[in-house]
Structures are given as structure tokens and as C-alpha cells.
């Protein structure tokens, strides 16, 4: 099984709807990263979370790291077609700083 799991695997939402993507680790996290990948393009850094309970926002995207530091959620408010893409969570575990591994990704489609 993977060290990092993401759910759902894919998501189709109507424009304007809210949505949440989850990332769960099998080990305690040192740092958690969210990236977005447009189809056929490179990865865009969204934000990094490190402290338990930390919450960060970037435009209409908010991410939170739970207190136990083993799960993060990414929430998009009032989704737009520009939000479509693959969302990837990356993580460093407390047992292996600097080694950044990624989850399988969540594919998001937003229907106008």
C-alpha cells in the first residue's frame, strides 16, 4: 500500500460548487505540500503545511493539516473551470526529512 493516499481519485463538480480533497499518510508528517498539475503541463506549488492544526489559503483554495499530522484536506470554494487539473499532495515523513513522496493524485473536472 502507498504511504500517501488521496481521496477521491477523481471528482466532477458543477461550477460554483465547493469541494474537498483529502490526503492521508500512514506515518507522522514533517511537512505536507499541495501541488496542482494542469493536464500535460508542469506542477504548480500551492502551499506547504507543517504545524498541526495549521491552515493556509491561496485565493479560493484552503488547506489544513490535522493536529495529529497525518492527514490534510484541501478545500476549494465556489469552484471555477480554472480549478480543473490534478491535485497532488506531497509529504516528508518525520522518519525521512528531505525525501518528498507524492500521493496518487486527485483529478478534478469543473463543468461550466
Amino acid at each position, binding site marked *: 500500500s502507498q504511504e500517501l493516499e488521496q481521496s477521491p481519485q477523481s471528482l466532477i463538480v458543477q461550477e460554483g460548487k465547493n469541494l474537498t480533497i483529502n490526503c492521508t499518510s500512514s506515518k507522522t508528517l514533517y511537512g505536507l*505540500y499541495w501541488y496542482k498539475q494542469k493536464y500535460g503541463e*508542469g*506542477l504548480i506549488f500551492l502551499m506547504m503545511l507543517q504545524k498541526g492544526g495549521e491552515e493556509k489559503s491561496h485565493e479560493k483554495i484552503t488547506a489544513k493539516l490535522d493536529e495529529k499530522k497525518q492527514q490534510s484536506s484541501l478545500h476549494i470554494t465556489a469552484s471555477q473551470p480554472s480549478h480543473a487539473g490534478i491535485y*497532488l499532495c*506531497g509529504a516528508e515523513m518525520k522518519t525521512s526529512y*528531505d*525525501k*518528498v513522496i507524492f500521493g496518487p493524485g486527485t483529478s478534478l473536472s469543473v463543468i461550466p
Partner: protein
Amino acid sequence: GAGVSQSPSNKVTEKGKDVELRCDPISGHTALYWYRQSLGQGLEFLIYFQGNSAPDKSGLPSDRFSAERTGGSVSTLTIQRTQQEDSAVYLCASRDSYEQYFGPGTRLTVT
């Protein structure tokens, strides 16, 4: 400033041939990572280099894969005796503090 660059952008090779993929990281970045992304999949960790420390090779899928980083800068990923299952996009990233900066990738197709 210049970002991470990778070459070639596309590589088509015959099964059994060796290939070399190159990554030029952002100048001054101490950490360099290689990942593999198959169609519709997430990023599979292959190897990372941090400064002068021994590289973490724990993600290399077989002994046909190797990588080196010369002078703490440019890195080359070598795949020997390529197989069809090696077909994927190979991504390189460099890092200074916490954010990784990714290159555009090399799309490898093994026929």
C-alpha cells in the same frame, strides 16, 4: 531567473537500448529529485540528492536505473536495457528551502 530545465523533452527508443536523461537544476539549489509519472498516475519517487550526502536511491525500480549528480549541479538519470514498462514522463525537481521547483519533464517512449 532560469528554472529547472530537462533534456531531451521527448525521447523515443527501442527496447533494449540505453538512455540518458539530463536535469539542470536552479543554480544554488542543494537538493535534486527524480520522479516518474506514468499516464494518469501520481509521481513515483526514484532518487534524491542532498548536498554532498550519499543519494537516497530507495525508489529506483531496478538495477537498470542509476543517477549521478556532478559538481552538485547537473544530474543524469540513466536507464540501461530499456523495457516498455519504462515508458513514462520523467520529472526532475530542485529545492532550496521547502518548495520544489519542477522541470517540464522528459517523455520517454520505449518501442
